[in-house]
């Protein structure tokens, strides 16, 4: 085994880190407190090339590999970019644009990818429904073929970027009796008659990322907007889930590093009983625990990216293991960080409580921790690891 990144990858990560610290981080607190999406930062992410990093140059990207994308996402978290912006980026690039790129027709790719890669258009992905989350086969949204069109009816819930998206990648049933094999994916443009968005949901964390319901009422879309072929939607959604459980997790890894650095600096500044709190073993133990956790999580998360770069199919076990590990068990060290900061940890000033609030989504979004355990145990039943 070998755990190195290439020089180019590390150099790029460093560039993203510097860019984010200078251009984005100064705007984070204002937007986070107001729960406002930061369009200016979004534009800058697009100009820097992050939003379309892994797409080929002809589509406005840089042709980067998956690991490089993950490093860039990690750098955003490490710089102190909030989880809301990184979530919007992840949903836009990996869950929406990548699916169109991987499975869409040439026409769809030409029409959507360059504008999504540049950030001119914002994308979202509609899979979850009020009554169907990880149990995708239970979805009720239907797409009925009528001549050269499909007619969509139903709704999608908890959709990241829903309110601000120009393009929605929507999963719906084209065959209600075929279970997973009856699910298909469609591109729906903002403003299409019959397509509306609900009220923005007020969330505990990732507050700069707008989340809402998508509603489809006799929404007519041309058959050309079918992504891939009828019935291919479930497989596509599973492939996006790998992104959900890898690149979308790396900002959290970066946030751990951000928190460690902040904790160290604060512990050296803050004095109690006549000496810096960094002198106390209880404080040191908290800092060390954060580091140990982060180092244990890193290879698990990057293994998914490496597998994807190797062109290996669906790495469900590895993805679920990484997600469960990082999402579930990051909460304790992050909670420790809040406590280390004492009263300040509970205030907005140092951004520590923001990281804890943002990270609280990790065991919920992209399949809860219980879902990850279901996947892992199911795969384990095939035999001992």
């Amino acid at each position, binding site marked *: *085994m*070998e*755990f*190195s*990144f290439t020089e180019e990858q590390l150099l790029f990560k460093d560039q993203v880190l510097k860019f984010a610290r200078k251009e984005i981080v100064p705007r984070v607190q204002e937007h986070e407190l107001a729960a406002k999406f930061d369009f200016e930062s979004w534009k800058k992410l697009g100009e820097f090339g992050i939003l379309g990093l892994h797409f080929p140059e002809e589509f406005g990207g840089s042709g980067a590999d998956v*690991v490089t994308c993950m490093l860039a996402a990690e750098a955003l978290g490490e710089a102190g970019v909030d989880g809301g912006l990184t979530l919007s980026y992840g949903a836009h690039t990996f869950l929406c644009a990548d699916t169109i790129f991987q499975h869409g027709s040439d026409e769809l790719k030409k029409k959507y990818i360059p504008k999504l890669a540049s950030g001119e258009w914002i994308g979202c992905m509609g899979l979850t429904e009020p009554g169907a989350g990880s149990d995708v086969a239970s979805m009720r949204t239907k797409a009925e073929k009528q001549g050269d069109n499909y007619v969509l009816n139903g709704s999608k819930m908890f959709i990241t970027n829903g309110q601000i998206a120009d393009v929605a990648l929507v999963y719906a049933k084209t065959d209600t009796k075929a279970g997973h094999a009856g699910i298909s994916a469609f591109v729906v443009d903002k403003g299409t008659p019959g397509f509306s968005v609900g009220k923005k949901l007020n969330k505990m964390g990732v507050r700069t990322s707008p989340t809402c319901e998508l509603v489809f009422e006799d929404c007519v879309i041309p058959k050309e907007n079918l992504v891939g072929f009828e019935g291919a939607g479930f497989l596509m959604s599973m492939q996006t889930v790998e992104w959900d459980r890898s690149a979308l997790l790396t900002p959290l890894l970066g946030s751990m590093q951000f928190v*460690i*650095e902040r904790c*160290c*600096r604060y*512990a*050296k500044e803050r004095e109690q009983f006549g000496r810096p709190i*960094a002198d106390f*073993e209880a*404080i*040191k*133990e908290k*800092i*060390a*625990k954060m*580091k*140990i956790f982060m*180092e*244990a*999580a*890193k*290879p*698990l998360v*990057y*293994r998914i990216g*490496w*597998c994807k770069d190797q062109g290996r199919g669906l790495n469900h076990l590895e993805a679920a*293991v990484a997600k*469960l*590990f990082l999402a579930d068990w990051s909460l304790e060290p992050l909670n420790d960080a809040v406590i280390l900061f004492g009263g300040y940890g509970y205030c907005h000033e140092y951004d520590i409580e923001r990281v804890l609030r943002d990270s609280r989504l990790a065991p919920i979004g992209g399949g809860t921790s*219980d879902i*990850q*355990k*279901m996947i*892992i*145990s199911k795969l*384990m*039943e095939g035999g*001992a*690891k």
Partner: protein
Amino acid sequence: MNFDLKTQEKEIKATIETLFGEAELEALAAMESTAIAGLRKTTLQLQRALAKTAWWTLGISDETEGSITSMFAVDTAVAKVSASFYLALQNTRLFSSLLANNFKSSTIETILKNYRAGELIGAVAFSEDSGQSLPETSLEQDSDSFRLSGQKSYVANSAIADFILVFAKDGEKQFLCLVDPKATGVMRTARIDTLGLKGLTYTNLVFDQLELAGDMVVDISGSKTEQYYKMHLNLILSAAATGVMQNSLKQAQTHARAYLKNGKPLMAKQGIRFELAEMLTLLQGSELLAQRAVWSLESGDFEALTISQCAAIFTCKQAENLSSKAMQLMTTEGYTSDSLIARAFNDAKGISIAGADIHESTMEIANTLLERY
């Protein structure tokens, strides 16, 4: 980046797995309740078989004998069979590696030749009653020779070792001394009875004006030998802990499939399946962190020491956690003192205590970070 084992590593692993048939496993189980003489005999017997594999000499010296990353990739194949036996082997290996990289004389060549044939058992004496900090055992120069005085605590393998490497100091200088445990001036205490790791012998050592020839002593002041020793010990313990975790998960999984409750296998219960899923997740996290720590050391990563400390702490704690979870899952069957899971549970605690001072390592990690940021 590459998360796959190399072809050579896969081949060595497969070869090692074939070496542990029913007879060998019985011999290893018997080691847990064998007197010292029997332990030495069994250890050498199994060691000779392992010495025929490429694994045995990987990473012994810098020049010729390959990668420790490869070695550790294969390590758990041994560690999962018996943590005691694995630690006994690795103490001998660490002894030989320190010897090969620090000493130069014809005597050393003979010792290393014996090692390569699997005919040698070695030990390294570092810890003292004062713990893991710099040794108090002192060395005095006496014209061309030296005199060693002091004591070392809980020295693994020492009761069955042919040779022991002892860390000592003379004022500010630090030395590594090659000691024949049968020499006059060396006293080995009776074997220390431990809760777990019963197949590994621990004794204390007392040196009373032990005379050592000049070529049996090396000045290691200013070198990274002590750091090398500590890092390697961290890695060995990580691999041992990972082996215990693999074994614990296997036991728990086998039990959950076979044990029937209300006419259904235990595995049918979601709570049990979720527990196993958590165990696998923690195991995989431990495996990769341990392997990354070895790679960091070999590749000269600036964080190698910190990562090795992280790996030792994390894997040791998770070995305790997983063996405990497995015992809970197996209920009374796991709680019987001759069960494999009870052995794993006790071994995990032993690994957590052996060598790595978790508290001190935790503080060192924090100090490094506080200095850096």
